[in-house]
């Protein structure tokens, strides 16, 4: 089984709707990254979470790391066609509770988001 499970695997929404993507880990998360990817292109960094209960926002995207640090969610408010793409969560399995990162990321399988105008 995957170390990081993302759900749903794909999501189709109407423009203006809110949506949530989940990332569940089988191990404690000390460094959790969210990236967005357009098909066949590189990964665009969205946010990094390290502390249990931490929440970060950028424009209409909010990411949270739960208190037990084994699940993260990405929430998009009032979705737009520009939000369409593949969302990937990545865990730095080599980081520690002190927040030091060693840059070896394990990724979920991705969530494909389609936003219809």
């Amino acid at each position, binding site marked *: 089984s995957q170390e*990081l499970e993302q759900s749903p695997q794909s999501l189709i929404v109407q423009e203006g709707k809110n949506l949530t993507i989940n990332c569940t880990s089988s191990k404690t998360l000390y460094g959790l*990254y969210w*990236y967005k990817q357009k098909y*066949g*292109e*590189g*990964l*665009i*960094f969205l946010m*990094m979470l*390290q502390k249990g209960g931490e929440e970060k926002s950028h424009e209409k995207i909010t990411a949270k790391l739960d208190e037990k640090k084994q699940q993260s969610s990405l929430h998009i408010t009032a979705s737009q066609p520009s939000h369409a793409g593949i969302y*990937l969560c*990545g865990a*730095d399995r*080599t980081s520690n509770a*002190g*927040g*030091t*990162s*060693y*840059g*070896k*990321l*394990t*990724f*979920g*399988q*991705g969530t494909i988001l389609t936003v219809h105008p």
Partner: protein
Amino acid sequence: DAGVTQSPTHLIKTRGQQVTLRCSPKSGHDTVSWYQQALGQGPQFIFQYYEEEERQRGNFPDRFSGHQFPNYSSELNVNALLLGDSALYLCASSLLGKPNTEAFFGQGTRLTVV
């Protein structure tokens, strides 16, 4: 500030050939990691270079090798190419061992093996 740059963007090779991919990290970063992303999958960690040495390695055969230069740029070499090596190869740069560091990715090199 230039981000992570990779070259070439696309490449077509024949089975059995060898290929070299290149990556220049983001300014100020000292660590380069390489990932392979097959179609429909998340990226898989290949290896990481820091101070011109391989520091960590994923579950990839020895056909995959790399190098890091004094200016922190890096190369990924794949020998004896197989059809299954067709993928998007991504390079990521970061600062090793620093709290709250972020990993930034390049646009990738699309390798097709025929």
